[in-house]
């Protein structure tokens, strides 16, 4: 029961804080400004990006090192 009271107290304390979407208002967790992969399902797949061998790799597939060309 003591647990529930403490939780209510904490929720009251942080209820005025903004949601942490890319911000750093959480005390112990900082989220970097990152595009959520799930959001790319809607508009992704245009195919205009480079095939990665064309950049530098020629041996290791390095899709994650690329940028989206459709900006």
């Amino acid at each position, binding site marked *: 029961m003591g647990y529930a009271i403490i939780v209510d107290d904490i929720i009251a304390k942080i209820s005025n804080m903004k949601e942490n979407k890319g911000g750093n208002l959480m005390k112990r967790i900082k989220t970097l400004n990152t595009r959520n992969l799930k959001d790319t399902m809607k508009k992704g797949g245009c195919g205009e990006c480079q095939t990665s061998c*064309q950049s530098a790799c020629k041996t290791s597939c390095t899709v994650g090192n690329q940028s989206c060309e459709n900006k």
Partner: protein
Amino acid sequence: MIHQYKNNGFNIILDVNSGMIHVVDDLAYDIIAMIDKINGKNTSHLLSEEEKEDIINTMVKKYSDSKYQELFADTSTDPVSVKEAVMESLIDIETLIKDGALFTEDIYEQYISDFKTRSTVVKALCLHIAHDCNLACRYCFAEEGEYHGRRALMSYEVGKQALDFLIANSGNRKNLEVDFFGGEPLMNWQVVEDLVKYGREQETIHNKKFRFTLTTNGVLLDDHIMEFANKEMSNVVLSIDGRKEVNDYMRPSRNGKGSYDLIIPKFEKMAESRNQNNYYVRGTFTHENLDFSEDVKHLAERGFKQISVEPVVSLPEESYAIKEEDIPALLEEYDKLAKYMIEKKKKGEDFNFFHFMLDLSGGPCVAKRLSGCGSGTEYLAVTPWGDLYPCHQFVGEEEYLMGNVSEGVKRTDIREEFRKSNVYSKEKCKDCFAKFYCSGGCAANSYKFNGNINDTYDIGCELERKRVECAIMIKVAEAEEE
């Protein structure tokens, strides 16, 4: 699925399915580790009250100790304060879960079914302008430039057919890529110039846009070629391994003499003429130079700003092949290199290392991450005779001959095999945190080491995982500086 790790003093959490990255303190790190263990593979599991109590009790037991005072700077390490801190963190973590930023589900199953049946067009070709070379690099995928005895230069006619094939099979894709490769393309330079001219004419007629790139060992690089390349090539890849002794051992000319002294001034000139942009100096590290970060540093100290140094791909029995026992040293090298880059940036002397590049806010979409490099589908290699292969690494592997530029792709079954290959069809990729960065790795590596494209080259995987960790850490360090 999450991946949490400590690197260079940072505690980092990667949420694999969303790509979101969090930097946390030691307390939050431990809490997240406990939640991860409790959840296992069931990410949608909501913590019960008992599980929360267990986490609280474990953390209170550990952190109610004055040696952790720094973590509780504005309160104290007495059990009540620690308990409050843990509960605050649990609420923050719940918020992140609700926001789809932590412990997110893998929702790409349906996407995968659609993905496998997607129609693809050809949008990039790797033209083997020459099956010949004026160097004899020991690790060459074409047997030190010997090409199994069959040396040849691509004729202009075959090159034209290749460009025609690309245009005809590119569907509605406007931006097309053509890579002048080899062997050494400068040995057949006139054909390169003529094909660029032809390509520009065809652009206008067919409403396409060619992006030409050139890879060269630099031996024949001169002012005329540099001028042409600066005008017409969107990217230039300049092959050099790093330090002179390293480069000259692996990249000798046919008379055994090294190539470093000849090419380094040309490459420096080329890089400056392109304003240190839109090129790469591209090196390969082997068992002979496990301290490869020194080669990257060497190139950086010579003033190159765009550097790519990658592990050799070879059969395991070669003396220069990377072996299992080399891995710990190589992982350390990536860590050293990441720290070096951070220090250089602080001094205003930063440079790009290709494998550490990461665009967090504008990286590839899920479709791209699932389709990988496009080999065998969107990207094909063309031999001097016009034969089509999935990529340059498959050239000469007869079972992967797909067709010819004059007749098109005949082996559509090979194209299907490549189209269907993705991280979900590879057993070892399913539970790997790096899957959306490497897209299942290189098909050629998998084939060379395992005999099929749906397996993985494990040494490559270990190195890729470390590279992803380092790349993320560098971003974290940059964010801390701001």
